[in-house]
């Protein structure tokens, strides 16, 4: 099974993307938020049959969101994704907003940006998180 993600061999992040990506791979709290958010978002946007399934993960989201938010770009991005997905599953937010925020926080898109654009994107997303109250506190 490859790649072996070995914590003791985690390389140092050299830029904003690697900070985000490495945290996604190695920081369990971030990975959990990201996995739950991604799954709920996919279920919500794939088909009507996915809505009850997304709602069935509400307890998972609640449990993850009960832990205090952590500092850092990746922690805030994926916590915010989970907060919004949970709201959407509860009927408190719309799919359009969910899709837009997922696109804004796409890891692959973030990788394609140059360093300056990444900083701009990070600032924009940070503002969105604040405006939408997605800190998950």
């Amino acid at each position: 099974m490859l790649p072996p993600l070995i914590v003791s061999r985690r390389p140092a992040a050299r830029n904003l993307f690697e900070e985000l990506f490495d945290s996604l791979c190695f920081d369990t709290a971030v990975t959990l938020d990201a996995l739950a958010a991604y799954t709920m978002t996919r279920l919500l946007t794939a088909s009507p049959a996915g809505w009850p399934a997304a709602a069935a993960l509400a307890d998972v989201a609640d449990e993850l969101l009960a832990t205090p938010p952590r500092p850092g770009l990746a922690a805030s991005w994926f916590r915010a994704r989970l907060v919004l997905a949970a709201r959407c599953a509860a009927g408190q937010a719309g799919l359009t907003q969910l899709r837009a925020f997922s696109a804004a926080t796409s890891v692959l898109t973030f990788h394609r940006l140059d360093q300056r654009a990444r900083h701009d994107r990070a600032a924009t997303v940070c503002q969105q998180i604040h405006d939408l109250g997605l800190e998950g506190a």
Partner: protein
Amino acid sequence: MNAVDLAPAQLDAMLADTRRLRAAFAGTADRDWDAATAATELAVQLGHLAQCVRRDDLNEPVPVDEQRPITDAGDELADVVLAALSVWTLSAAPPRDPELHRALRTVATGSPPADGPAALLRLVSASGALAEIAMVENGLRHRPGGAVPPLPDAVAAVLATCLTLACIRHLDLAGEFARMVRDADGFITRAQPASAQPGEFSTHERTGSQVRKRLGADHLTGRDLPVPAGSAGSEHLLRYLDTLRHAGIRLPADLAVAPGTPLTVTYTWLDGPTLAEATSTAPATVVTSVREIISWLRTLDDTDARIDTNLATSASPTVRRRSSTCCPR
């Protein structure tokens, strides 16, 4: 074939294929689609269909790009149907398929169009109405005054007109749709070869059911995580695998680490839907799988090992075709 000739089972199959294809195509674009995006795609496919009608019915000289020939009216008509059904399946309000069935049974088709171009004009008209609804729903356009048809009626109107056009051209629309789905599946497979899937850390070769995966290829993101991990050697990889097994993670029974460098593992291919596909086809199973993966992640938290959460789905009840990817996008 006309509107009432499209059997409910055929429509259900088309909807299921649409949802599956939308999930599969999601990996080929930078951004997720919504109903308005699908409406834009509807315009694209109408343009393709119009090329065929202009060439075939009006004898207009329409250049053909040999690299991308747009000459098969049946295929283009099926693409129009796919786009229209995508508007339905991606609608912000969760669509209820019985409403579409009802709308298709009762849609008013009016007098038969005189010929293919006349039918195409009706299709453009119906598609425009559907696109407008999609844009309004997605907050991209104001809601116009006057009567706005409900979404099911607008989708049904497009489908009914497609059926009429298919009848004029002696095409079996359901058959053309099924053929398009097969082609689309082939495209998706080619667009995402196993060694170039998003998030791939390694290259792998597949011969029949046997997979041979090598560490060290460039990752799509340019991240060099495999390098420090790979320099650890096969012994470290074996310890890593033991850690996973102790955490309760089910690895392929015949997973083997090959000696030498680069690090290489072999195992038997596990067939099945990707996580993205399963969200459309087996959502309850996805819930079960994700709960299990979360338990693995928590168990591993005190160890030196982490897992690629997409990869983990291959060991969970939701089996995926891909054999290695990065974390969720």
